[in-house]
């Protein structure tokens, strides 16, 4: 399989940072009660993660191993501060809705994790693809859970009122926790099912090849 396709699929699905690796839990639990906030946080993380992966990958030969973590933190903190300035200036409503969680992106394990596990060992292009894929994986997971929580908790989707019946708990972090747990269970079940079928198909093909060889 093409390595970029592999990196993309890993970030989006097979090693999805939120649902498979259970990283970035703090903003997930704090923000998925609103689909708009969840999508906004996700897109901000996409930009910061991609840029931090690119910069760290480009600087990997310059940064001594002993101070790599402080250097990564400085780079990530700079990008987060820059993103905060941009959002406050041009998208103040989103800036307000993200609240303190925006500043907390600095310590988001996904960003530091990808810098440490991937960007400092791979090329700039591979790191950019990895950052984009993981960021989008995070965004998709947050947005889908945000839609479910907002629908159940507030009877609306992206602020658009749909129904009057609501379950108040789903507008709170407790409800977000339940939705998060159920999403992890469902996602893991689907991935396991997919991998099981893939293994069955591979075994069947191997058996058919063996039988063909024996027949020949």
């Amino acid at each position, binding site marked *: 399989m093409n390595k970029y396709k592999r990196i993309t699929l890993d970030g989006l699905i097979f090693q999805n940072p939120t649902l498979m690796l259970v990283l970035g839990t703090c903003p997930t639990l704090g923000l998925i009660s609103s689909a708009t906030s969840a999508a906004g946080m996700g897109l901000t993380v996409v930009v910061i993660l991609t840029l931090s992966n690119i910069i760290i990958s480009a600087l990997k030969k310059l940064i001594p191993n002993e*101070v790599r973590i402080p*250097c990564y933190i*400085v780079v990530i903190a700079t990008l987060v501060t820059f993103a905060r300035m941009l959002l406050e200036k041009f998208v103040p409503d989103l800036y307000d809705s993200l*609240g303190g969680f925006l500043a907390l992106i600095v310590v988001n394990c996904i960003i530091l994790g990808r810098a440490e596990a991937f960007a400092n060992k791979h090329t700039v292009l591979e790191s950019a693809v990895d950052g984009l894929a993981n960021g989008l994986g995070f965004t998709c997971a947050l947005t889908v859970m945000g839609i479910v929580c907002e629908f159940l908790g507030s009877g609306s989707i992206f602020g658009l009122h749909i129904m009057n019946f609501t379950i*108040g708990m789903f507008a*709170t972090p407790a409800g977000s926790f339940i939705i998060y747990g159920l999403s992890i269970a469902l996602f893991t079940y689907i991935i396991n099912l997919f991998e099981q079928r893939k293994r069955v198909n591979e075994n069947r093909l191997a058996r058919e090849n063996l039988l063909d060889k024996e027949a020949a």
Partner: protein
Amino acid sequence: MTVKQFFKSTAFKCVATLMGILLVCGVFLTVMYGFLQVSDEERFDRAIQKIYGKSVETTQIDISEKETSFEYSDILELYKVEDDGNYLVLASGKEGFGGVVECWVVVKMENGAVAGVNKISVNKANGESYISKVSQGALDSLAQKADPDEELMGGYKHGTKEPGGDYVQTGASYSMRAISNAVNGAMEFVKAYVAGGNNQ
């Protein structure tokens, strides 16, 4: 260790790299801050737009000589809204979730006396992680509860605790308490210093 050995050592490389990255990042952020900083005027215009949905004429009132500090709140700025005769107060409420919540409070005036609160809008809330959970609906509901004769108690009208209110479901009880304190302070200030305490 000689000077030459020091400059070739890993320790020097580490310090130099870290300082270099800090310097570049610092310069970058300083330059960007120059372009992207939100001025106080811009913040005020945004607040007016958020509260009224349009531009309104306001006159700032000098409160430097007044007593602006209350037990649970501080008054930062005061404006007279020329269009409707109400007062727009920037007040900060204490007892939040580790932080201070700054709110714009439109104090409603009727016959020269404070009659309640028309609108509340959060201006700044450093350190209040859950402030984003306080919806405008919850703030509007709080504004309706505001009574010039009774202080709001942590988001509730005094003596009428109503379980299941908007903000209870959000988990932002501490932030709501700070907002309530800011609203109480704003009404108290306008009553005592601007409307001369005439509240009948």
